[in-house]
């Protein structure tokens, strides 16, 4: 009798287990439940505010910055945060010293300011940050772009950094915006692309006024001269060679903001898509041998559909429809529409923004990133917006300085705006600029960090993305470049095969979690994962544990959980 009762209890438990499996959120139900929740500065201890140095003269650099980064500078397995600030320049003398900030992740949802200890305060008029381990010593370094000379901080591995800019030869004076680490010559070393904006100094600030307001507003970049971006080849000895001229990059002066390293023609060489403001965008196709060819016009990504250059700001690249070809995205200013360039192969793209276009009609986009926020396996899209002109509302109907964030869910061939159902933060407005993506709480879903112009940053915790199954990969290169930029990750789960190229850069002035979180949806196992490294090596993994981070060593496969 007792035995019988025990048996029936077991049956009951088994049934419950089956039910609970059945109730596990399917791809569609999980999607609706993912929320981004704002982590207050009180909770995170991220007590920091960007100073945009706004002046009555409305100097253009004031409105362009600044960026942010998720990085793990001390290799403790938890993402830290770096925030870029303004600083002294030819037009600005801060009343009190301004600093960039490095916040250490305390593993409990809070952060501690370790800027001074680390020695990464910057002290220049900062724009963006690009994080990567350029020397392959196992610790990520920081490259800070500025209005003025840039900074390369080498990570000493002990919680401190050393300014090695001069020695490395990557000063790049002028006005730099986005920086992108990638390996253009596949020599296993990370090279550096630095976007240059316009020629500018305070004497070249034309008088742009609104007669009705009798105040200056920020001039349109059209009024300024373009300058060439820079490409630095990593020599592997801690120094870089400026190869802008010989690579062909310098042949194309621009007013460049966002840049992403991607492979648009699947030839294994990383190309560059660069957004330009009021000028045609550049698509630099890597021809090998250290040469790039600019094919933006022929590719159909340089101009708007009427042949008019637009105001490109943030960019990113992914294969959103899973056809095996990298697509491109660029955010523009209000009334210009954002572009989702579908890769039609043969280096031809067609703009197919779908629902994104009408939704962004009146917005100006900066930070943006394709990532799989709900771990259903496909890349979604997060957009950070804000108009550069703080007085725009008085001049253009329906356009405001502060603008909302947007989240688009990938529906297979196109994107659907799910902002309204993804958290209260999407009902707020920001002077958004930078956007970094990373799993700062290590719970398996990707969180978001937003840097705002003249405001505090916003940290958004992803709540519910991990209801779908996932696996996080930390790619450790042995022959390929340390960031594994250019690696192709293919995985199969639940009968669906997906493929992802590890791109370099993307977004705006910002840097992301270097780990790759692969969504498995409701599949209870990942059948296999294949890593095709830039070196050509291939690692194929099976029996990869779910819902955890794993380390993959190039040539050796899975090494640790």
């Amino acid at each position, binding site marked *: 009798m007792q035995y019988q009762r025990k048996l029936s209890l077991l049956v009951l438990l088994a049934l419950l287990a089956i039910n609970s499996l059945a109730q596990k959120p399917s791809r569609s139900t999980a999607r609706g439940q993912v929320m981004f929740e704002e982590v207050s500065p009180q909770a995170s201890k991220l007590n920091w505010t960007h100073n945009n140095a706004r002046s009555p003269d409305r100097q253009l650099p004031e409105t362009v910055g600044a960026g942010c980064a998720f990085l793990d500078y001390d290799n403790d397995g938890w993402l830290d945060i770096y925030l870029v600030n303004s600083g002294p320049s030819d037009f600005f003398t801060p009343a009190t010293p301004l600093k960039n900030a490095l916040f250490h992740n305390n593993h409990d949802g809070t952060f501690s300011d370790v800027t001074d200890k680390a020695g990464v305060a910057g002290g220049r008029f900062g724009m963006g940050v690009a994080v990567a381990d350029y020397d392959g010593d196992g610790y990520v370094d920081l490259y800070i772009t500025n209005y003025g000379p840039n900074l390369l901080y080498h990570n000493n591995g002990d919680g401190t950094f050393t300014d090695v800019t001069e020695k490395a030869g990557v000063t790049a004076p002028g006005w730099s915006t986005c920086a992108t680490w990638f390996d253009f010559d596949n020599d296993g070393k990370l090279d550096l692309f630095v976007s240059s904006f316009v020629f500018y100094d305070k004497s070249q600030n034309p008088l742009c006024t609104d007669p009705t307001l009798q105040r200056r507003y920020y001039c349109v970049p059209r009024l300024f001269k373009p300058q060439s971006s820079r490409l630095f080849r990593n020599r592997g000895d801690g120094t870089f060679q400026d190869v802008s001229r010989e690579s062909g990059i310098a042949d194309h002066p621009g007013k460049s903001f966002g840049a992403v390293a991607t492979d648009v023609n699947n030839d294994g060489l990383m190309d560059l898509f660069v957004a330009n403001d009021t000028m045609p965008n550049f698509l630099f196709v890597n021809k090998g041998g250290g040469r790039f060819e600019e094919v933006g016009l022929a590719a159909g990504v340089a101009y708007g559909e*009427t*042949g008019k250059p637009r105001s490109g700001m943030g960019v990113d690249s992914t294969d959103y429809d899973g056809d095996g070809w990298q697509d491109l995205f660029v955010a523009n200013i209000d009334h210009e529409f954002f572009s989702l360039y579908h890769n039609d192969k043969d280096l031809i793209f067609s703009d197919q923004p779908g629902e994104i276009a*009408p939704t962004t009609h009146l917005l100006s986009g900066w930070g943006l990133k394709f990532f799989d926020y709900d771990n259903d396996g496909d890349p979604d899209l997060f957009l950070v917006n804000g108009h550069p002109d703080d007085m725009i509302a008085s001049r253009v109907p329906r356009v405001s300085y502060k603008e909302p964030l947007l989240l688009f869910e990938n529906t297979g061939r196109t994107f659907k705006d799910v902002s309204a159902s993804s958290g209260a933060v999407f009902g707020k407005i920001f002077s958004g600029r930078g956007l970094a993506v990373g799993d700062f709480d290590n719970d398996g879903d990707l969180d978001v960090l937003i840097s705002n112009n003249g405001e505090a940053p916003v940290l958004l915790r992803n709540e519910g993305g991990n209801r779908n199954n996932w696996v996080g990969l930390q790619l450790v290169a042995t022959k390929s470049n340390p960031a594994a930029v250019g690696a192709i990750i293919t995985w199969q789960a639940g009968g669906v095969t997906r493929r992802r190229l590890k791109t370099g850069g993307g977004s705006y002035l910002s840097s992301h979690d270097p780990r790759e979180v692969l969504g498995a949806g409701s599949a209870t196992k990942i059948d296999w994962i294949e890593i095709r490294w830039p070196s050509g090596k291939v690692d194929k993994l099976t029996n990869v544990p779910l819902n955890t981070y794993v380390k993959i060593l190039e040539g050796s496969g899975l090494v640790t959980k």
Partner: protein
Amino acid sequence: MFLLILSAILGFQTVAQQPDLVQRLEQVATLIRENRLTEAEKELAPIARAAPGAPATTNLLGTIRAKQGRLNEAEALFLQAVRKDDKFTGARLNLAYLYLLKREHQKAIFQLREVLRLEPDNAEAADKLAELLFADGHFDECISVIEKQRQSRALSPELLVMLGDAYFAKGAATEAEQLYLLALEGRLDNAGALLGLAQISRAKGELREASLYITRVATLTADSKSPEFLYKFALIAISVGMIDPAKDALERTLKMRPNDPSFLLALGIAWLRRGDLFESEKIFRRVIELQPNNARGQLHLGYVLLNQKKYGEARVWLEKSAQSNNSIPEVFYYLGLVAQEQNDDARAIALFEKTVQKLPNYVHARVALGSSYMKLKDYTRAQQELETAVKIDPDEPKAHYNLALLYARLKDTARAQEEMRIIEKLKAKGVTPDSGVVVLPPTSPP
């Protein structure tokens, strides 16, 4: 309505010969004029009994019925009078006015023509007929009617303006200009004549002069209570790019007739010209609310949505408009653009070709056709269409841009750069590509 009574008496005079009867009928007419319809009918009854079916009494009874709002009975009575006496111009005039009340313009025109055939010097009939012919777009006959009157009498400034408008509509700008100037001799503040001169200046490309006329008209018509005139003014103002006065005028017309779809449509177009897609969208939606089958409203709503890249809904409205005979050929071009954006290239090409068949010189359709062929990598046909587009309008930046794109894809860098240089030159001349996907075509309203 007083004209109906007047015509009733006139009609009566042609028939009734007995003085006492005339007096009695005049008494009836007076009662009608004073709106004492029951008494008039009572007074008329014995006369009608004495001479059943007499055209004069039938005509008066018809007038009473018309004033009572019993229009069908009135029509039957007037027709009865005319059947009895087909030269009874009074009854015919009454019929014409009745048909105007019933908005049956063609029937009114027929009766007025008959009146003029019987009485060529009937100024009232001539003026009314001319007005109706003009409104219905029968410009040749309108000109003929007024010119005949001009031989026998001095035309009023209003009629001179109408004649000028008719000539202008026929493309005879010189004659029109002379007539407007003549009308101004009679009255320097003749807003209609000034508006006509504005149209002429616009047609000659003298936009500054046109703007000056428009400004003068705007001052003169600050207190205008004529929605029709304000509407006409607004359309011309829009066409010379004076959007604010146009909007003001249309907003005034809409205070007088808030639900007039034509006025709303024009206001929507004014907002559209201002570049405000959202305000114009609201107004076009209102037009369709009022007139669900308004083809122009559907077209414009579709157009606005297309420019907002809301392709799905744009297609719905454009297709509705295309099904109507009142739509314009460009609707197929817009539908083609929607198809192009929705990756339905075959359908896009078919629609662009349909547009080109109807409007061979419509440059935007040629460019779109070239662009579709380019998407399909049919570079030969793309080149043909784009080169045709450039021949049609060498100043169309979009055509040059697509040619640049084509040459770049054909690896002809020099020609691609040359095309981009042309765009730069056009930009220097002030010709910039439209920021939207399409531009409002010249044949679309206004």
